[in-house]
């Protein structure tokens, strides 16, 4: 598990490795609060995410709320088929931009 952050020109890239679940909460929340004011966009890289549970979906909703519900401010990239399935079941593809 792990949350890594990289900032390029105001774009905050968040990499989530392994299981995206409640164990990522503290790191995720910290990253969020640190960059919320300065970020032009959050890009969540899910290439190395093996699994996502409902608490991870909850964290994404928190991010959505904090960025004012603007779909252009959050982007998911490199979504694996497994994780895509989870996002689709919850219809999060309607709430977020998936690249």
């Amino acid at each position, binding site marked *: 598990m792990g949350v890594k952050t990289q900032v390029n020109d105001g774009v905050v890239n968040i990499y989530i490795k392994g299981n995206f679940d*409640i164990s990522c909460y503290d790191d995720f929340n910290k990253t969020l609060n640190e960059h919320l004011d300065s970020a032009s966009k959050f890009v969540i890289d899910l290439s190395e995410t093996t699994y996502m549970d*409902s*608490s991870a*979906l*909850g*964290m994404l*909703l*928190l991010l*959505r*709320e904090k960025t004012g519900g603007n779909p252009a401010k959050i982007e998911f990239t490199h979504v694996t088929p497994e994780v895509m399935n989870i996002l*689709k*079941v*919850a*219809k*999060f593809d*309607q*709430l977020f931009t998936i690249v």
Partner: protein
Amino acid sequence: MRILVVDPSETNRFYLKLVLEKNGYDVLFASNGLDAYQMFESEPVDLVISELTLPFMSAYDLVEKIKSNSSNQMIPVFIVTNEVSSEAIQKALEVGADDFLQKPYSEQLFLAKILSLLRMKQLTTELYKSNQTISSLHKNLELEHRSAERIFEKFVHGPGKLVPGLETHIKPASIFNGDVFLSTVMPSGSVLVLLGDFTGHGLPAAIGAIPVAEVFYSMVRRGRTPSEVLSVINSKLKEILPTHIFFSCIMVKIQPDRKLVSIFNAGMQPIIKFNTLKREAEEYPSSSPPLGILDTNEMSLNFLRIEVEPKDCFFLYTDGIVEVMDTDRKMFGVERLVEEISSRNNPTINDLVESAKTFSAEPLFEDDVTIIKLSMDEILSESKQKLMKSSNIEIKPATQWRLTFDFCHKNIRVNGNPTEGVVDAIMVMQPLISFKEDLYLVISELYANAVEHGLLKLDSSIKDQPDGFSKFNELKNKRLSTLEDGKITIYVRQMPKGLHSGEIEIRVSHSFSESGNDESCAKQLTTEDKENAFSGRGLLLVRALCKSLALDLDNATATAIFAWQQPEVLNEA
């Protein structure tokens, strides 16, 4: 700190006394195993130092006895011996001795080992104390949970009615894993079930279940439609739940008389339909985000209607069963669940739970699984009358009355669909809880048709295109926001047909004002407009629900006759 020294040699005892007392320890002595054990039992000691070779009781027995009689605290046993055989020392460690030192030894090492053993004792004591605190807290919490559960059970399951054809497997303490299952017979005689799952576990999930249950049972009792129930649940949850908690759910309504099932899946795994005769399985995936996230007006609470046969059954389940993992951490999954269902002539809930159990890597299968089976044959064979009766609604004698509602373009633009208010007004004139849902559907379809095709001139063939529904809605909202002319009239009249039966005429018409200020909104309806005006698919539904439906193209009026009759079984009762 008090140390018990056990050594048959007087010289050794004297030496140890000197060393230990010089370093501030209290010292007790014994020259054999038996005396030592008696002393250990009668005097509190913090540490035992013992030679391996002892008369009367062997050092091994002494160690074992000390360890087995000090289970609620740790008394370190330190072997200090002349013995050189490593087997003998190993054996002492195996029976429970904590450390050893072979003679001759350096005094510093000896004292350092004593300090280290006492430190270990200290840590163990602290650990033991905090374990005790945790276990007593846990016991209290368990007690509280049990009381809360009892209250909750009464609340959530109390008003539920006996629903036919229902087989369930619900984790006994289901309320604290966030699963919610509600079922009832609606006043109209339809069966309605709701299976849902809150994010996370524990108290927040359980608390959210309470408003869900309350809204569900109270609104259904008052004859509200499933989508109204869902929209109120959504608004409530949106208001009370923290952002990161939401409610995935499935609602299924079964109309036995029409052999029709309506389903709504918001963020749950696919509903599985299985026909036991044809051995065919079909999946109905989620069509909406879970409840409690979006504002109700941003959600489309559309039910999917499916015609069913008696040999159909439906499986609803929460994540528990599909997330069971085997030894390779592979998940049970939806595909496997469908296979397990399809491989049987008549799959039962128990079969599926057993399969998951066999698959699971956990020797103690965590029974964190909610799975529901709805068998159509049992529900469809119940007569509508009998089901209606079970909801205990008495119908008042029919009277004659009429109501007229006019909605101008401003109302239509600002207030949205007024059906709920119209139906409520009808209920004041003639309380017909059992038929309220059908009346709602009829009026709401006729109204929607008049707005979309009559006033806004939308072409429903748009819906046939890929992505058509959202295009249609987009266009609808765009035209609605600029609607500057037009009016819709809903005229409702009841004609009694006996003491406990009647016909309700519902006439919905649309028109434009003589002085329409927009040229494109012509005063005179063109032929094309007239034909298009009644193209809504909802009209099929209206035809199915009503005794008759007449469309008057010239006057842009749809007239439906809705007939009702108090079920005969009720008269007998």
